[in-house]
């Protein structure tokens, strides 16, 4: 790259920035947003606790999607051998059709429905007279056409309102078909306040209908599940590559490139590891209660985090062979990572980033930016709860509001035949003492610098203002934000879908990410925004001929 970016010296006071963001809002909106915009660890902030997982304000252009998106789009989408049948008007199925970049490998069995969109395409008469018959017929038609081992039914907004009983239909069809597990999700878009409710609904049903159904033993000495990893851009493939190399058997990635059978046998794992805390932490809890599998938080985003997570897993298994193996793998992988890191860091050191995305990525990716010497000056989640910012210790204090109350909470009990505590309480205590913290997550705040701005459910207006005022070197969010940020002349990286890049997890992913950010923050193309005559609009006296 020939163009060197000059180091920017922007002076801003976080309180001023916050004030600027709130200035234009009607008072009611300003009051609400003030509680969702937090100056990290700053004393003048009179909201020591952040407000999160609350409704977006009508008319304020949010980044959020709906419950259906979280359930069908995020959670169930990547499971390749379950047919996802969307019960509703055509749009919901259309928009969730291949629009996330979950990679799937059809495998030896060759079952892969990820490239398909199935819908009952409800029409006016279905809304008026009910859509149950059509849904039933649709399940039958799918079965006759493709004979999948499972069909999942997803409710969209009108379904709940008109009273279609999708769960009964599912049960009846499961019985009728015999060799096809049919189950349903009441994930109408208006439920909850964000995708998060959809994750919850999805997790509950998967937990109830498939998880641990198959007692066929699974080979492997060190068996884990990886919860909350969706294999966007091949992240899961990279993590699997590393785990394989370490001799760790990953039974189920929940839900990237997953299969029905992987869910059904997941209870054979001896450890659950959680990537996306927001979307899946309670599955860890439920599986511990039902099957006795402990869970730890891991993070494979960032080379150092990856190494740390591997060591945690190895420590959990208390096996010197595994511990050595993990160390050997880290030693083998790190030199290339570090060489790239050092090279890129020589250019990125001191640059600034903003991250507004998802339920964990806005935190995880700060690790990668840190490895490049970049500072995250503002960040926030799209659909987080307070614990994702403040750490799990606040969970007992979170007040359940009306919007969350309707989302089912399931309270499993220990499975009669399958419950089997993997460690004794003493072992657990010893491991905790040795640093392997179970059911632990510190949240985003603790990892961010003082004076940085943490903003929950940031919106279009605030994002634009933030960029204008703080002029970050890179802004990370989703497709809806991409081009308005770029129009401001600021490079933008999608961290939901990775644009068309990835993987960014694991060691190779870290290298990819360093190189990608290097490209974005050092491309000469950002120098072209103004034409020469806009740079110097005044005409000099006369044209200089040869």
């Amino acid at each position: 790259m020939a163009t060197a970016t000059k180091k920017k010296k922007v002076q801003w006071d976080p309180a001023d920035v916050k004030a600027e963001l709130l200035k234009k809002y009607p008072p009611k909106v300003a009051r609400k947003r003030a509680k969702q915009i937090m100056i990290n660890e700053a004393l003048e902030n009179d909201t020591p606790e952040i407000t999160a997982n609350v409704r977006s304000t009508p008319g304020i252009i949010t980044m959020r999607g709906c419950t259906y998106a979280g359930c069908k789009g995020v959670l169930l989408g990547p499971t390749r051998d379950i047919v996802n049948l969307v019960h509703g008007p055509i749009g919901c199925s259309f928009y969730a059709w291949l629009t996330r970049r979950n990679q799937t490998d059809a495998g030896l069995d060759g079952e892969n429905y990820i490239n398909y969109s199935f819908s009952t395409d409800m029409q006016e008469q279905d809304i008026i007279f009910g859509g149950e018959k059509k849904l039933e017929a649709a399940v039958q038609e799918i079965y006759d056409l493709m004979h999948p081992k499972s069909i999942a039914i997803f409710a969209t907004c009108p379904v709940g309102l008109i009273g279609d009983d999708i769960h009964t239909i599912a049960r009846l069809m499961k019985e009728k078909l015999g060799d096809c597990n049919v189950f349903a999700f009441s994930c109408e878009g208006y439920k909850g306040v964000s995708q998060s409710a959809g994750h919850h609904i999805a997790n509950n049903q998967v937990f109830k209908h498939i998880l641990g159904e198959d007692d066929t033993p699974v080979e492997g000495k060190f068996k884990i599940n990886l919860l909350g990893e969706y294999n966007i851009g091949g992240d899961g493939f990279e993590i699997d590559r590393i785990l394989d190399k370490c001799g760790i058997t990953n039974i189920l990635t929940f839900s990237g490139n997953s299969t029905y059978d992987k869910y059904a046998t997941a209870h054979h794992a001896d450890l659950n590891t959680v990537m996306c805390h927001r979307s899946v932490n309670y599955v860890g809890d439920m599986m511990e209660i039902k099957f006795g599998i402990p869970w730890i938080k891991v993070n494979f985003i960032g080379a150092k985090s990856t190494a740390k997570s591997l060591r945690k897993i190895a420590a959990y298994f208390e096996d010197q062979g595994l511990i050595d193996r993990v160390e050997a793998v880290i030693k083998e992988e790190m030199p290339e990572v570090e060489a790239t890191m050092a090279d890129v860091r020589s250019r990125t050191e001191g640059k600034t980033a903003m991250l507004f995305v998802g339920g964990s990525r806005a935190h995880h990716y700060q690790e990668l930016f840190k490895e490049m010497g970049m500072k995250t000056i503002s960040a926030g989640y799209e659909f987080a709860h307070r614990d994702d910012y403040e750490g799990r210790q606040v969970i007992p204090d979170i007040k359940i509001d009306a919007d969350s109350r309707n989302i089912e909470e399931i309270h499993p009990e220990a499975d009669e035949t399958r419950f089997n505590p993997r460690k004794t309480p003493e072992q657990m205590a010893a491991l905790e003492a040795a640093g392997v913290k179970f059911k632990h997550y510190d949240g985003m705040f603790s990892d961010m610098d003082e004076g940085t701005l943490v903003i929950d459910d940031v919106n279009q207006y605030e994002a634009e203002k933030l960029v204008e005022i703080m002029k970050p070197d890179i802004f990370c969010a989703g497709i809806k934000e991409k081009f308005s940020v770029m129009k401001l002349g600021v490079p933008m990286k999608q961290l939901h879908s990775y644009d068309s890049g990835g993987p960014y997890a694991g060691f190779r992913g870290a290298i990819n990410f360093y190189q990608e950010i290097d490209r974005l923050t050092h491309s000469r193309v950002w120098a072209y925004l103004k034409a020469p005559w806009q740079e110097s609009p005044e005409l000099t006296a006369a044209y200089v001929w040869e």
Partner: protein
Amino acid sequence: MLLRHTPKEIVERKAVSINPAKTCQPIGAMYAALGIHGCLPHSHGSQGCCSYHRSALTRHYKEPVPAATSAFTEGASVFGGQANLLQAINNIFSVYEPDVIAVHTTCLSETIGDDLPQIIKKAETEDKIPAGKYVIGVSTPSYAGSHVTGFSNMVKAIVDFAEKTDKKNGKVNIIPGWVEPSDMEEIKRIAKLIGVETIMFPDTSGVLNGPMTGKYKMFPDGGTTIAELKSTGDSIGTLALGEWCSADAARLLDKKCKVPCKVLDMPFGLKATDRFVDALRTIAGVTVSDELNAERGQLVDLITDNHQFFYKKKVAIAGDPDQVIAMVEFLVSIDMCPVHIVTGTPGKKFEKRIKELTDGEDYEVNVKAKGDLFLLHQWMKNEPVDLLICNTYGKYIARDEDVPLMRWGFPILDRQCHQYFPTVGYKGGLRLLEKILGMLLDRRDRDSPEETFELIL
């Protein structure tokens, strides 16, 4: 195989749609609303709809697509969305300051029965709409019609702006239908070349194909202005391009302001463009300029020069009714054979029109309205084609069947420049044929054994 579960054998489906060739009404309404200058589209429903529509339009245009939502929660779904919409209107005018908010409904607000006109009236009464600003609303139930219907409905709603005064403005209204910003620009250029003053609405040129300048304008320079929209009631007539997209609005304007109208096909291809140009010059009583005649002649030149490559090549097409009708006519006119034709939008008149256009051709034509890409793919397995014309979703079929894909229609998510280069008009015809020709010849180059690999084609 990407679509390995699609069997060759075709069994009629009555309940399940697989791989749709349409989406729902609200996104069409959103796109149409973006063609009004200073307008913020607003989705009256749960926030997911708005998010999905914005994402899809953004991916297609690679441009910012602002739109707001009423952000229904479970409560609103039970008690009605009036409070949400009123709050939204207030917030939007405070924060984003558009000239117009164009509200469309969703399956949610439709199912619960929200009464948009009443809510908008309430907003007026409660002074939530600043002076000189507008809120328009339209019913776009997702469970009826398709995205095309939603577009058409919003265009009808735009006709509300029309005012009839005593004085004709001497202009011709053009309702272009759901075409690209580049197409809208080209339609205006053609009218200008003919020497006709026009008001085009909606007009997304300058809105969804904007420059990179280092500045972000939520409301770009493009779009039909309110003043222009008002003036449509004084125009000498309306040309509505496309029965599905534009006819209803034109007829409504006729009914409302006595502006006579004519429904033409969308000007894709030689003949449809001829009819559009002929209509304009006849209305204006002018002679078609040499420049436009020359553009026409270039298209005819390209057709006659390359007829050998087009001749008898079989094509499968999926897309929206107005576009597909014009494309089928164009293909037939150059002796290509559109053998499999699907639109996701319902309407038997589509099938009838296609049958008319292919009447007398010596090949069988499979056509289905309210069809899907799964069916199209099955047809292609039964009778292979030389070319697939489809939106980006066609790429899965194209790869499986090893058929070249010309991306055309909505959405195009993996290629660029549809927003910059038109496919309407004669120049658009050149572009379409350049692409088709390129694909057919690329395939020939790829598949030729070395002995028949050719320098000159």
